[in-house]
């Protein structure tokens, strides 16, 4: 197993947010920020050990264990319909959605749950999946549940359209695409990975392999800002407004 980068080791259970060297990028809302701060995210987004540059600060790097799922993972498996009574725009229900993330996966095929029983968030920072990830329903609860559970990026072979758009619009998770077909099959749940958005690569430290990602392009800064509204305000497309 290849050694994880030094900064990752330095990231403690309290998360990079409280590690002074990491300027935290503003998210869309106060409760989203609070959610990230408050909850135990053992594998939270961290920064590489390299010297800070302007480019680095706008190109997030995520490091931690990955959770691997198969092809055509539909949104019913990501968040079963019985939990859709939870309203994502309400802070307490947002957190609850996170605790149910991926609870629709068949237990036989996925013996390890994404969120451990009794926990509100997941230990997995990165989700790795096959083609057509997020197919099915337009429920925005799907990317929200993954983000609320603490996942920062999905690395899949391809996406269903609405899931991709909802991920970007909410800024909940980076929907990243693998450049090579089938690469996702080489990852196993629990492998330690680093996802470098700026370099468009995912490194699997457990297997020692590196995978190219398709550049996320204009969608990257939108996710970085915390969704379309935050991005539009940040860039002056719409007037900034004191949002609660």
């Amino acid at each position: 197993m290849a050694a994880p980068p030094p900064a990752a080791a330095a990231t403690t259970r309290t998360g990079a947010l409280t590690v002074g060297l990491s300027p935290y990028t503003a998210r869309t809302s106060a409760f989203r920020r609070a959610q990230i701060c408050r909850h135990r995210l053992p594998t939270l987004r961290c920064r590489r050990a390299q010297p800070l540059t302007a480019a680095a600060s706008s190109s997030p790097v995520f490091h931690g264990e990955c959770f691997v799922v198969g092809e055509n993972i539909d949104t019913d498996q990501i968040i079963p319909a019985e939990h859709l009574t939870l309203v994502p725009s309400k802070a307490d229900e947002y957190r609850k959605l996170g605790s149910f993330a991926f609870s629709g996966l068949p237990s036989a095929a996925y013996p390890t749950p994404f969120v451990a029983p009794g926990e509100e968030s997941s230990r997995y920072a990165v989700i790795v999946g096959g083609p057509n990830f997020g197919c099915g329903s337009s429920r925005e609860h799907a990317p929200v549940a993954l983000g609320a559970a603490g996942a920062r990026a999905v690395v899949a072979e391809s996406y269903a359209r609405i899931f991709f758009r909802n991920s970007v619009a909410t800024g909940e998770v980076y929907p990243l695409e693998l450049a090579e077909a089938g690469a996702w099959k080489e990852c196993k749940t629990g492998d330690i990975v680093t996802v470098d958005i700026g370099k468009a690569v995912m490194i699997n430290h457990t297997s020692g392999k590196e995978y190219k990602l398709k550049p996320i392009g204009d969608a990257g800064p939108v996710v970085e800002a915390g969704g379309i509204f935050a991005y539009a305000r940040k860039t002056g497309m719409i007037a900034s407004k004191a949002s609660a």
Partner: protein
Amino acid sequence: MTMTEKILARASERASLEPGENVWVDVDVLMTHDVCGPGTIGIFKKEFGEDAKVWDREKVVIIPDHYIFTSDERANRNVDILRDFCMEQKIKYFYDIKDLSDFKANPDYKGVCHVALAQEGHCRPGEVLLGTDSHTCNAGAFGQFATGIGNTDAGFVLGTGKALLKVPPTIRFVLDGEMPPYLLAKDLILQIIGEISVSGATYKSMEFVGSTIESLNMEERMTLCNMVIEAGGKNGVVPADETTFKYLEGKTSVGYEPVYSDAQARFVSDYHFDVSKLEPVVAKPHSPDNRALARECKDVKIDRVYIGSCTGGKIEDFLAAAKVFFASGKKVKVPTFLVPATQKVWMDVYGLSVPEFGGKTCSQIFEEAGCDTPASPSCGACLGGPRDTYARMNEPMVCVSTTNRNFPGRMGHKEGQIYLASPYTAAASALTGYVTDPRDFLM
């Protein structure tokens, strides 16, 4: 340009546009429901302010339909959130339900949003309809551009009336030939999804043309367009014609202007089907593209049959099921659940006396066949829903269903198995207790 390109060009005030371009379009209708409405409203209030007004109170349609007949407090609260918002904003089209004990006591209540949108005249050729539900593509049956969006995008539309959309390239499906009497539109779309896979039309528009399509009534065209999302499609369209115009008569006072693909329009690919040669099909668990002939599955023992949803709960779907029961004169061998999509469908199930059935109504035929009494109209168990939802699969059973998705856990239990089928095939399967080709009863 294709039909979809033309609709988006007009909505963005462009003379022409190309697939792949991102354009700001003016939205003609925004629909939301009890599952995504409260979140959409939350985003709208947060981003535009507590006192903000929606961009046009006559262009927003709010339809409680998903989790209605349940004692789940949060589900009930979500309908209350919709009601409060509609009162505050003076939303013109809100199809409310207050008395859950008897849906008939709620004259405004409709039921399943996609069928209600059509019935109430909100689906008009040439327009843009966005909805917080992936089956919003249903309305493409009217030659409307219709697609599903998330809460955040819908919150933006509520405030501005605009959406940024990428113009999809179009795949054309040419279906010719006489429709055999044992096939329904459900067979056609399952055939197509089996052909191109659950991601075969991702980011693309699917246009349905040909003599078979022209012969279909509006309900059948809706079934076809309803499931384009199951192939990943952004939208589906059927060119508007006399059938469309006749359906719309008396349903809307809004003027509309249909558009059609040019003879020189560019399609990314063409698929041709001779419908006269097709056979009844099902989608086996757990994917809508897991196609098989119904007769190939005759040894699959089933526990129940479900007839309902936006895809398979319209009056034409119940007439089709009743036709099989009437032809056989036998009783069902497994519990058979019937959930009319809307209050109007329910009334027709009980009220339409059908000459072909000796003047009987569908409800009489269902009763004679031993089906469960038709339930209150809603999305029902199509997507599982709260635990107390009527006909929800709370055990790992095998179900033949006229709904649209057979993902793991879709109708409730994660180990449940769902065979998607036409109402003919569903009714035939109910009569035998096995997946059954309807020709066994209709020929």
